[in-house]
């Protein structure tokens, strides 16, 4: 059996310290710094790989994953609206969170498969970027209809010029242009420190999660179930898609994880500006208080097993 990954333990440390109300707080500037490093590092890694293969080969995958990004919130919305009896804006906003992706969860998956030396396709960061955007657009349309009033210019600005996309895409492009040799000189900061930086990030995520859990009681059972079942459902869709696209078992599992993960950076920021009447506590409680810990602690190994089954049953 594999040992517990220490980065998960950092998450648990943060979570427990937060629940115990310990005097532990990471300065906001450090949280920012650490996220910036992670986003750039993930982008760079993807970019280096893109430099090795013709972009055209990836186009089918990109389009398929884009389609999944549009589909997932459309699956989530009716569940939230009718089963969960959420107001329209809230259902749309939560659906957008779950249709998009979490970079932190992706990083945990990368670490997980890296430790186990399981191969996955190196252009995954590109799919991460691709998956980030469509759910936001769907969420806004679900909340507002195709209303003329929506200031799509502002929306697009918010979506494409948010910190997450700019740094991921920027990293991708830098890695792609500079190539494997070019990046050697910045490797010690962005690659060698990656898991250590991720550990610090997860420590803070544990503290943030603990703060969200307080509001869990308020929203009760439906949100709790949704926050654990929706990712499993999405993961299945992701795993099947990965298999259909001919990804390796590892790649399938990572795509399943991407599908399962729920955004807590890009989408909240965009929803705040574009669908302000949606209650951010609801969506953050779900995505940070339930789904993030679920994915980090249980989800990733589960989606690993899922990908193995899919590949075993459906053939490689």
């Amino acid at each position, binding site marked *: 059996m594999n040992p517990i990954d220490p980065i998960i333990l950092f998450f648990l440390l943060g979570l427990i310290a937060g629940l115990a109300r310990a005097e532990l707080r*990471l300065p*906001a500037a450090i*949280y920012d710094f650490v996220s910036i490093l992670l986003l750039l590092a993930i982008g760079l890694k993807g970019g280096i790989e893109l430099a090795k293969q013709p972009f055209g080969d990836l186009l089918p995958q990109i389009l398929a994953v884009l389609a999944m990004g549009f589909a997932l919130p459309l699956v989530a919305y009716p569940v939230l609206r009718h089963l969960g009896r959420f107001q329209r804006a809230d259902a749309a906003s939560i659906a957008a969170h779950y249709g998009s992706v979490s970079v932190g969860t992706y990083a945990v998956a990368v670490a997980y498969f890296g430790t186990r030396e399981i191969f996955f396709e190196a252009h995954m960061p590109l799919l991460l970027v691709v998956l980030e955007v469509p759910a936001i657009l769907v969420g806004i349309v679900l909340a507002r209809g195709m209303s003329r009033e929506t200031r799509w210019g502002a929306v697009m600005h918010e979506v494409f010029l948010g910190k997450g996309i700019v740094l991921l895409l920027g990293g991708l492009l830098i890695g792609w242009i500079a190539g494997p040799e070019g990046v050697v000189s910045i490797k010690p900061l962005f690659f060698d420190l990656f898991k250590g930086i991720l550990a610090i990030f997860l420590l803070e995520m544990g503290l*943030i999660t603990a*703060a969200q859990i307080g509001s869990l009681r308020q929203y009760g059972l439906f949100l709790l179930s949704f926050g654990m079942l929706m990712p499993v459902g999405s993961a299945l869709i992701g795993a099947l898609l990965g298999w259909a696209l001919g990804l390796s078992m590892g790649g399938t599992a990572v795509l399943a994880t991407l599908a399962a993960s729920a955004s*807590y950076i890009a989408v909240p*920021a965009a929803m*705040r500006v574009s669908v*302000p*009447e949606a209650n951010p506590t609801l969506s953050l409680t779900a995505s940070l208080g339930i789904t993030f810990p679920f994915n980090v602690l249980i989800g990733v190994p589960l989606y690993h097993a899922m990908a193995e089954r899919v590949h075993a049953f459906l053939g490689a």
Partner: protein
Amino acid sequence: MSLANDRIRKLLTIVTEGAIESALVRDLDRLGAHGYTITEARGKGRRGVRNAGWDASSNIRIEVVCNDDTAAAIAAHLQAQYYDNYAMILWASEVEVLRPEKF
């Protein structure tokens, strides 16, 4: 420092979510504020604790010194546009300024 009438202006203080900073600042410009000062903040209110640990829970505190009309316009706009959907609080007081021609 006499509280001479022509040196009296309104000081508006707004505490709200960091997420809407750019929109807010654009509004202030449009509504005729000649300047503003922003500090990072955290706090508690109707919408719970906002501890500034990360983006979604950070507050900003904006101060605007301006004349009465601009203050009224800003207050009205914020109340109409943001008060219901955002963590926001606003208060106003009278202050005496140096160089009143600036405001």
